[in-house]
């Protein structure tokens, strides 16, 4: 589909920098923007990881001895905010979404390329703002949840900078969401039906609906909170007649869907990776689509399970218990479908596959503790404890971050034309998997036995288990070294991958690696069966030569 961009792009060739400088420019190329998100996000991941390291160092001993107490609270607030708003959400949505979605719908770019660039370029300033608040005044100290009245009483400058930064990031997220919805619904190549799209498109459609519906609520809430702080209004301030619990409702109306904003795209990415490396079609495409949409709907009506101890009425607790538990059903469908996809396949035990399987293992664990947490009586004991810390790190790290790594190993040859080194990749996986489980599994026990979250000091009986957890964190920190070495060296010296090293059928592989500007030379391929693995060549439908057939015919092993 040739849109009117063509003359404009030609015009801007002389103005836009070429080569690596493109990645520092206001480029409107979706692939450049995708990589900008990814690299920018990874820098923030390293910063957030360093903050996590500071937390785990403080928790080596039961007394508060490593950081001043105020600094510790700043560190934990920054860690949560950086990891959620600057690493996971931008990378798993903006990064892979921008890179892949135009390919998947057969478009040459996103629907609104300029808005797309604006959405990305909101992120670095917002991130710098957030982190500089630590050096200028003091960073926010009230946790990433910023519950009033604490957020009203802690130093105002840091809290206001935090609010501004999150508002900018929320804006970026909404721009991205609108762009994805428009691209998926309106820029599909003629002849491509919705139910023929790769699963990641559905995941991003669902995610973007959540972003557009819930992020504005967070924005409004934070604006009201900033009024409470600056103008001394009393929306959430009980001493002025406000209600602190209303803030919690509004906050979680965004921040629970935010979990799905972080996890649904990961579900989509795994659905792309597993069929390719198992050489089998994605099992149960239709039920996958419905379960994504089921998660979207249910995800919007479960927020109060974060507030079971905050004086919510009993009927409300009951409703939110049932609604939350039921998310396990569509989620379960997806997991069983992935297992069935692998069953009977020809599974390549490469790093992308290992990280995907690591994701399944971790996420199932996090999902089981999640269903337990949904039960009010269970939650009342472990709410706001390390059990919850363990649970959500199993979801966002063991779930999403594992998928981010799997995706990097899977799509690196697409982006660079070179393969990542497999032995280094397996070392990376092993260190990450062991370190992660050593870090977060013991935290469940800590929570059950009486260690609350967000503390700099704790009961000495928990020392040993905390030290184990910190050891796991150290392994996780070390695991980034082989990864970084691998990514940098392979970019120059990696084994040449060819255009399609995985023999994949999805449209991003049906072009050169790395792809040209505007994605395809000539017509975009029309892929009706993105997961058409395992077919016999003679079974190919002869009606219309699809892109998948084009490469099959070019492959000597598969030529009939």
């Amino acid at each position, binding site marked *: 589909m040739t849109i009117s961009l063509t003359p404009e792009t030609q015009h801007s060739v002389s103005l836009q920098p070429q080569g690596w400088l493109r990645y520092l420019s206001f480029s409107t190329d979706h692939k450049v923007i995708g990589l900008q998100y990814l690299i920018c996000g990874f820098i923030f991941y390293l910063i957030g990881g360093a903050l996590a390291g500071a937390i785990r160092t403080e928790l080596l001993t039961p007394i*508060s001895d490593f950081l001043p*107490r*105020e600094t510790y*609270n700043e560190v934990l607030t920054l860690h949560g905010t950086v990891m959620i708003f600057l690493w996971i959400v931008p990378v798993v949505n903006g990064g892979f979404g921008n890179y892949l979605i135009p390919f998947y719908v057969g478009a040459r770019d996103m629907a609104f390329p300029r808005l797309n660039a604006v959405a990305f370029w909101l992120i670095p300033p917002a991130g710098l703002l957030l982190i500089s608040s630590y050096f200028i005044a003091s960073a926010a100290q009230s946790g990433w949840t910023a*519950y009033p009245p*604490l957020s009203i*009483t802690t130093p105002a400058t840091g809290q206001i900078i935090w609010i501004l930064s999150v508002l900018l990031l929320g804006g970026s997220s909404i721009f991205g969401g609108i762009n994805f919805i428009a691209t998926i619904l309106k820029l599909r190549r003629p002849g491509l039906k919705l139910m023929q799209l790769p699963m990641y498109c559905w995941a991003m459609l669902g995610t973007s609906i959540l972003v557009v519906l819930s992020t504005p609520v967070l924005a409004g809430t934070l604006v009201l909170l900033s009024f409470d702080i600056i103008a001394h209004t009393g929306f959430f301030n*009980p*001493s002025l007649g406000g209600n*602190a619990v209303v803030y919690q409702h509004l906050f979680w109306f965004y921040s629970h869907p935010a979990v799905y904003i972080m996890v649904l795209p990961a579900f989509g990415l795994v659905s792309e990776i597993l069929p390719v490396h*198992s*050489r*089998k079609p994605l*099992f*149960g*495409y239709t*039920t996958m689509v419905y379960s994504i949409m089921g998660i979207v709907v249910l995800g919007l009506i479960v927020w109060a399970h974060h507030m079971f*101890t*905050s*004086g919510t009425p*009993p009927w409300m607790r*009951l409703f939110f*218990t049932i609604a939350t*538990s*039921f998310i396990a*059903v569509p989620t*379960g469908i997806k*997991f069983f479908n992935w*297992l*069935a996809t692998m*069953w*009977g*396949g*020809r*599974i390549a*035990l490469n790093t992308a596959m290992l990280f995907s399987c690591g994701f399944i*293992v971790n996420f*199932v*664990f996090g999902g*089981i503790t999640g269903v*337990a947490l949904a*039960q009010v*009586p*269970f939650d*009342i*004991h472990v*709410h*706001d404890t390390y059990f919850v810390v363990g649970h959500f790190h199993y979801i966002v790290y063991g779930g999403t971050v594992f998928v981010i790594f799997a995706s990097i190993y899977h799509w690196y040859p697409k982006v660079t034309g070179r393969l990542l080194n497999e032995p280094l990749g397996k070392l990376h996986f092993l260190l990450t998997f062991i370190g992660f489980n050593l870090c977060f599994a013991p935290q469940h*026990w800590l929570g*059950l*036995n*009486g260690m*609350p979250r967000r503390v*700099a*000091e704790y*009961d000495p009986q928990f020392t040993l288990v905390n030290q184990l957890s910190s050891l796991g964190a150290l392994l996780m920190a070390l695991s980034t070294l082989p990864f970084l070495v691998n990514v940098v060296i392979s970019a120059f010296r990696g084994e040449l991958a060819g255009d399609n090293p995985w*023999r994949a059928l999805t449209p991003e592989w049906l072009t050169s690696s790395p792809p040209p500007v505007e994605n395809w030379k000539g017509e975009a391929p029309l892929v009706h069966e993105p997961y058409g*693995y*395992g*077919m016999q060549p003679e079974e190919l439908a002869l009606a219309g030569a699809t892109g998948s057939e084009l490469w099959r015919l070019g492959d000597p092993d598969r030529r009939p």
Partner: protein
Amino acid sequence: MRIPAAILTLITGMVLVLAGLWVGQNVNVLPVDASANAPVYDELFKVLFSIGTILFVGIVGLIAYSLVRFRRRPGDQSDGEAIEGNLPLEILWTAIPAVVVLFVGIYSYDIYDRMGGMAPLNDHSMHGMAHEERTWAGISPVSLDEESGITPLSVDVTAMQFAFIFHYPNAEITSGELHVPAGQPIALRMQANDVIHAFWVPQFRLKQDVIPGQPTLLSFTATRPGRYPIVCAELCGPYHGGMRSTVIVDEPETFQAWVNQNSPIASANNVTPVQS
């Protein structure tokens, strides 16, 4: 003759379920139970632990088996079978989790009811009609009606940065630690002075946020004499981690002795200020 795959699957499933039940019943990861509702909680925990173990071990087993059994041999360029779905199978794995989740939901509702969580909110208004102040109710495992004959021991709890203050209105004792008699229902009337705190006693399996502007009632019955930590579980500022106290559960006589020793009324008039 080879044993049919269906029989092997059945046996694996049975072993898995039995192992899960055994783990749920015998692996103890909870602290000692010291209140009337803790054993109720532990019952739920064991069920969830069993179901969770069965699911987790089952799925990890399936993945490990698939990775080994269906791994790609070197040089193999072939594909797996083109199976795109299986409706009966998909219905099965939609229905089973739905039933399990529904069962767990109803069961935990029952547990919650037994813990007293479903008591209607306004049962516990502690005041007359005029300028009525609303009280939020946390878990109330005991009936607090006057008619039931059990008089709960009432304690006012004030949470502030960074301490809990306990006040016994009948005995006029103010203390930094909570002393309670075993076996008698306790009604904590809690309020927060500055920011949100949370009152948590892990051994009681009880937690309640204390929110400024929302006086909250939490009641429980301690069962096992001993000293247990009271932990603030909601981030409340720099010294949040240090906001800890102790609840001392005494035998009723020991508790009475403590009251007599500390109460200004008791020492002045020598009357018993607390009914038991």
